[in-house]
Structures are given as structure tokens and as C-alpha cells.
């Protein structure tokens, strides 16, 4: 028993946090300038989303609360739209939706994908094969098409979680998760198999650790770094998918500010006259995704030394 714990401690050696926890952060800031820019943009975006009620200049969902289709000015930074809503305020609130759905999706898909990968790796054989084929099927659909079909079919069959996640948002999360989970599953499964064959797992097995224990205490902790990298690259993709679905009219509830939805519907009628209603939501979306991508890149460089300097 003691021996097995010793083995566990040994295997976790690699994961032990560095002596000075801030050192890593400092190194990141020093070495990853683009990543730092990304991080700053992300922080700004999160502040914008969280403090939207304070930063907004008018009710983003009101009707006629501002003059209509006014060009950007001191009182309406991004101009106003046809419903008489301030585009700046809608962009702020749109960040909430993107962030909420992006995070929910990534967490569910990453945990789900990893759990399934561990199960597949643990049980192997038929289960592994079955999971693999289901993932093949799900991955073979162009993601937008799949989410489109799914959304249309399940729209009225899911619960409304009220303030936390409206029915439409819940559905978006489900639709996007089903697209991303198999991708994450595939990546993680490959690593689970790799880890299973690693020497430290062999040694744990030799000293009699159960398969279950090996999975959770030995292999899983070693996947955390990779998981973070996968999550950081999935998040911007999830945000893009959400906005594409909202753009296609199968996203958030009518009237809810969303970067994708604000580029579609009745707004399209006025793009020629009021280009700012087309430019700013798209810009906010692009910058956010860019920020996450920059940060994700830097994170990968930092967490995965093998790749350092390459991307």
C-alpha cells in the first residue's frame, strides 16, 4: 500500500507546482508578448461583459430608447440600429452570450470528451471501438449543418433554465457540444493510450494499483496540460460556431444581443445605409476570437515545451 502511494507520488512529481507560483506567470508575460496582448484583450472583454450593465449607454433590448440609425458619436460610440438600440451596449451584452455559451460548451465538451476517452481507454475493446465509430460519424458532419439540424429538431424539447441559460442558449450549448465532444474525445483518447503504455503506468500496475486508480490518479493528471491546451483552442471555435448559428437564425432568443444574430435578420436591410451595425458586432467577435487564439497559442507554447517557439 505504502509502495503504491510512493509510486503515485513519484508519478505526480512532474505535476508538482513550481516553487514560486508567480514565476510561471512572469515568464509567460515576458516571453509571450502576443499571448499577453491576447490575455489583456480577454480581460477587457470579460470586464465588458460582466460590467455591461454599468458600461452600457442604454437598454440593449429596449425599443426606441435611442434615435434610430445614428452614426457613431460621443453618446453612442458604435452608433445605433433600426430598433433604436445602442450598438455599443448590444456589443457589450453580446459578449455575455458569447462568453457564457463558449465557456459552457468548452467545459462540457472537454470534460465529456476526456471522460469518454478515459472510459474508452480503460475498457478498451468493444467500447473503445463503438465510441470511436460514433465519433467518426459525428465528426464527418460539417459542424454547422449538424448544429443546424439539431437545433431545429430539439428547439421545443429542452428545459428552460431561466436566467442561467435560456432554452435557446441551452440548446446552443448542446448542439455545439455534440460537435466538439468527439473531436476532443479523439485527441484525448490518443493520449490516454500513449500514457497507458508509459513506464510510470507500467510500474503502478506492477505494484498492484487498480485500473480505475491508474486512470484517475495517474493518467488523468497527466492529461491536464493537454486538456488546457485543447480547451483554449476549442473556446474560440465554439464562440465562432455560436455566432454562425445565431447568424443563421437558429441561435439565441429573438432580441437577445448576440454578435452573430446582430449581423442577420432585419439589420441586414440597413447595412448599406448604416455600415456600423454590420462592422462593430463583427469586429467585436473577431477581436475576441483573436484574443483567445493568441492566448491559446501562448499557453500551448508555455505548457508544451516540445512545441516551444514553433507556432
Amino acid at each position, binding site marked *: 500500500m505504502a509502495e503504491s502511494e510512493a509510486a503515485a507520488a513519484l508519478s505526480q512529481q512532474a505535476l508538482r507546482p513550481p516553487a514560486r507560483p508567480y514565476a510561471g506567470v512572469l515568464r509567460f508575460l515576458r516571453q509571450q508578448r*502576443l499571448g499577453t496582448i491576447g490575455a489583456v484583450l480577454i480581460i477587457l472583454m470579460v470586464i465588458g461583459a460582466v460590467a455591461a450593465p454599468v458600461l452600457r449607454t442604454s437598454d440593449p433590448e429596449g425599443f426606441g430608447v435611442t434615435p434610430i440609425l445614428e452614426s457613431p458619436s460621443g453618446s453612442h460610440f458604435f452608433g445605433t440600429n433600426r430598433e433604436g438600440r445602442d450598438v455599443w451596449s448590444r456589443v457589450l451584452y453580446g459578449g455575455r452570450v458569447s462568453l457564457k455559451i463558449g465557456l459552457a460548451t468548452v467545459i462540457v465538451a472537454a470534460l465529456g470528451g476526456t471522460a469518454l476517452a478515459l472510459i474508452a481507454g480503460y475498457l478498451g475493446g468493444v467500447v473503445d471501438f463503438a465510441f470511436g465509430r460514433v465519433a467518426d460519424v459525428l465528426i464527418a*458532419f460539417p459542424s454547422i449543418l449538424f448544429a443546424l*439540424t439539431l437545433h431545429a429538431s430539439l428547439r421545443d424539447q429542452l428545459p428552460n433554465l431561466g436566467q442561467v441559460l435560456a432554452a435557446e442558449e441551452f440548446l446552443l450549448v448542446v448542439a455545439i457540444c455534440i460537435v466538439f465532444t468527439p473531436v476532443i474525445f479523439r485527441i484525448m483518447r490518443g493520449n490516454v493510450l500513449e500514457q497507458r503504455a508509459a513506464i510510470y503506468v507500467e510500474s503502478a500496475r506492477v505494484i498492484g494499483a487498480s485500473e480505475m486508480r491508474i486512470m484517475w490518479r495517474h493518467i488523468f493528471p497527466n492529461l491536464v496540460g493537454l486538456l488546457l491546451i485543447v480547451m483554449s483552442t476549442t473556446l474560440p471555435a465554439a464562440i465562432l460556431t455560436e455566432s454562425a448559428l445565431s447568424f443563421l437564425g437558429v441561435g439565441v432568443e429573438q432580441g437577445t444581443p448576440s454578435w452573430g444574430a446582430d449581423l442577420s435578420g432585419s439589420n441586414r436591410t440597413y447595412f448599406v445605409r448604416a455600415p456600423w451595425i454590420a462592422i462593430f458586432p*463583427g469586429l467585436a467577435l473577431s477581436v475576441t476570437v483573436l484574443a483567445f487564439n493568441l492566448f491559446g497559442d501562448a499557453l500551448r507554447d508555455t505548457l508544451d515545451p516540445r512545441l516551444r*517557439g514553433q507556432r
Partner: protein
Amino acid sequence: MQAYIARRLIAVPFMLFGMSLLLFWLLFLRPGNAALTGFGLVSPDQNKQAIASLEEEFGLDRPFFVQYGDWAWNAIQGDFGISLKNRRPVTPEIRSRLPVTAELGLLTVLLTALIGIPVGIISAIRPGTFLDGFLRIVTISGISVPNFWVATLVITLPAIWWAWTPLWEYVRFEDDPLNNLKIIIWPAITLAIATAAYVARIVRSSMLETLYSDYVRTARAKGLRERAVVLRHVFRSSMIAVITVIGIQLGAVLGGSVIAEQIFGIPGLGLLVFESVVSIDYTVALAAIMVFAFMFTLVNLAVDVIYTFVDPRIRY
């Protein structure tokens, strides 16, 4: 190798079966369908009759598995039935639209390769330089910009500034190749921005991985010019990554065609998929999506096969 390809080929029908079953079920879940949408103003009694007669005509009142079995049996024989919306046979419709989307897809992949690979190479051979940094920002921006936004701006802004739009009367490729390309090029560029940026990033990283490997050092040591080293040795070994990524990106392009065809008014399969899914025209939606999935599956298979030619080390 042959055994591997055979195994993959055998898996294809099973995957298609799985996909179609899933899709059928998803569409089956939805209330209403295209056949019931369009008919005229009727009394409550006539309404019931009309619904009953339409359901009977299309066999919509049968149990799920009977409907699916019937559909699948015909689909295997290449007959996707008739559209619920307009009763036109689906197969010819797909056949007329497939080349349009295929052209868009190929053109996009071509642009992706033509832009992505050189940009990746340039970044890789001058790592850490200003040019590399600049291209890195450009490519990471490229993968961050949503294609529907770019498409919207491409349509809108020139119309405001110069009263010009990339929309001409759509002409088929076989009628007027040049004008057809003039139209298709815009959605292709729109879609290629993200894919080219992605490919450039992959080319760069995989080339950097090999640039400092032993055999490259050997090549340099024996006096090969840098150009030859890069092109003959480094690039070739990076091709695997590039091919994989282009294969995967084709999936993104197929999905993107749903949006691009809508905005640019291209009468392809993507537009058909969107309209049929939205109007619940089961037969058309199923056929169109299955064609998409089939194309995607084949591309994946092709990618795996090409591996073996590019990299002789790989033996399945």
C-alpha cells in the same frame, strides 16, 4: 496498405448508415414538414383531410423505422425520392447543384494551398524575424475572422463606396467559365481566408520541427543550397501535416458553403441544405447532407491514402 484501405472502405457504408439514421431521427423529431406548409386556405375539416392525404402520399404516417428503411433502400439504389415541397425528384436536383459546390470547394482549397503554403514556408525559413512576426499576426487574425462577417462586408462595403458588387448574373461553369469564376472567386476567397491562415500556421510549425532535424543538417552539410534543402527535404516531410489539414479544412469549407452560398447567391448544395433543413423537406435535406458527409468521408480516406505516397515510412 491495401488491407488498410479495404478496411476503411468497408467502414464507409456503416458510417453513412449511422449518419443517415441519426439525421432521419433528428428530422423526424420536428413538428410539421414542407408538404403541409404550402397548401391553400381550408376549413378545419378540409385541413384534416388534406393533412391525411399528404401524409399518406409521402408515407409520413408510417412508423419511424419503416420510413427510414424505405428511404435507405431507395437511397442505396441512388433514388432519393421526391421533394416534399415541390414533388420534384431529389437526385437530379442534387446532381445539378453538386458541381457548383464542388467547384467552390475546390477553388477554395486551391486558394488555401496557393496562399497558405508559401506564407507558411516564408515564416518558417525566417523564424523570429519581423516578417515572421507579421505573418504570424496575419494568420492568427485570419483564423479568427468569421466568414459570414467577411462575406457581409465584401457584399456591402463596395456597394456603398463604388456602387459595385461581386454579384453578376450567375452563369454555369459549362456555359461561361470565365464569368462563372468571376462570381465563384469571391465566396472562395471569403472561405479561404480562414483555411489558408490555418494551413500557413501548420506549414510553419511542421517545417520548423524538421528544419533542425538531423537529416536536414546532413543535407546542408553535403552542400545543398538552402532553397533545395527547404523545398526538397523540409517541405516534403511537412506535406503530411499540410495534407491532413487541407483535408480537415475541406469539411470547414463544406460547412462554410452553407453561409457563403446564401450571401453570394450561389445556387449550390449548401444553399439547398439550409433551405431544406429550415423548411423540413426531409428527403432533400437528407440527400443533400448525406452527399456532404459522403464527400467528407471520401476526402478523409483520400488523405490517408495520400499519406502513404508522400511519406514512405508510413505503412498500414
